[in-house]
């Protein structure tokens, strides 16, 4: 903990996404469009973690993620925690849960799916299978294993 504090500066107010698996931090930044803000963002990569060995961390000032955004983090980062900070104090700690659907974030692997048009947001629902989890595109209705959509 002491090491993290030295490497990633504390924020006064905002959200800290912690326990992101190493190498995923940058992916989350772009997929969730966290960079589309004027607020200051701090990112730490490959930090030591007791839980994961190595982890990434993202701190976004003056921004509180919506419940939807937090839950959508769970598909890439199932062990992540989202901490809300106010006046340098931890005022909330949320553990993402896999949502029923995920909008905007993923790209449909079906190259002929209409969701590839720029003006449309992708939309997938999770479908639990006997031994796996699939994602079904709400537009083209094709179902893919989770790994195919996330890769």
């Amino acid at each position, binding site marked *: 903990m002491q090491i993290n504090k030295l490497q990633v500066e504390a924020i006064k107010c905002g959200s800290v996404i912690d326990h992101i698996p190493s190498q995923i931090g940058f992916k989350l930044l772009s997929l969730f469009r966290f960079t589309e803000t004027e607020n200051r963002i701090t990112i730490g990569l490959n930090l030591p973690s007791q839980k994961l060995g190595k982890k990434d961390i993202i701190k976004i000032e003056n921004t509180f993620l919506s419940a939807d955004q937090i839950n959508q983090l769970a598909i890439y980062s199932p062990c992540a925690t989202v901490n809300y900070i106010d006046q340098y104090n931890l005022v909330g700690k949320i553990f993402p849960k896999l949502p029923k659907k995920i909008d905007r974030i993923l790209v449909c692997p079906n190259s002929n799916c*209409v969701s590839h048009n720029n003006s449309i947001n992708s939309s997938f629902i999770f479908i639990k299978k006997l031994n796996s989890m699939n994602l079904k595109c709400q537009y083209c*209705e094709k179902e893919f294993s989770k790994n195919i959509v996330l890769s």
Partner: protein
Amino acid sequence: MRNSLYKKNIISINDLKRDELELVLKKSAILKKKPEPGLLKNKIIASCFFEASTRTRLSFETAIYRLGASIIGFSDGNNISLSQKGESLEDTISVISSYVDAIIIRHPQEGSARLAAEFSNSIPIFNAGDGSNQHPTQTLLDLFTIKETQNRLNELNIAMVGDLKYGRTVHSLTQALAKYKKNKFFFISPDALTMPSYINDMLLENQISCTRCQNIEEIISEIDILYMTRVQKERLESTEYANSKSKFILHTKTLKNARNNLKILHPLPRIDEIDYDVDKTPYAWYFKQAANGIYARQAILSLVLIENHF
């Protein structure tokens, strides 16, 4: 009483509940016996075919005229100013929805009908085929034909033959018949064109019997419906196509042990997978099936556009 299909978008067969399927089939049968030419008088329906599909378009248009409605639209997306000027599908649908009471859309991209429904300002969308995804009115006419010929939609043995990988008609029909009890499926296709895993998984999860077979002869004596589809030459290596093709051509001799009630269906167009001699047998039902498309489409159009139907 308001019928449950009133103002509903008809995008995917998966969106329709079993009682809604029944409603369409019941209405189709009524319209087949007793035409109601004034049912949609004063309605205007847009027929927007962004890709050519002569059979489906003419079938929809005939259904519209038989119900007394008027039609506007286009039959080939390449020749309209919308595409030449680069207007988006969303804007096109948004504009057309302000002119008409319903929009029929055929589009090469999967999901296009679902997208159109988001921009149609609550004007109902009828999917007349979106890429390799859905063609719900084809499935409704298939169901209507099966019910008409077998007098039931459960406890049937159905064989599907040909391109089961890309053929959307077999996917949708399997999904629809899976809503009924004790149906058994037999799938016959080249190795490269087998039924997709999501269909097999759905059958498995619902404990519905499905068997993969090598040829039609081995199951002909067991089946009530033989649903033929075209093995698409462009989908296979030339040698594989040559080998597969001969295995899946239906000849009259293949029908030697057929049940009396067997009916052969095909979404058409036929290329060479059904020998012309088969047309003369009592089993051939594909042209009557195509004719039933008019009634099924009349039924779904009237149920969606008239509130107090039945």
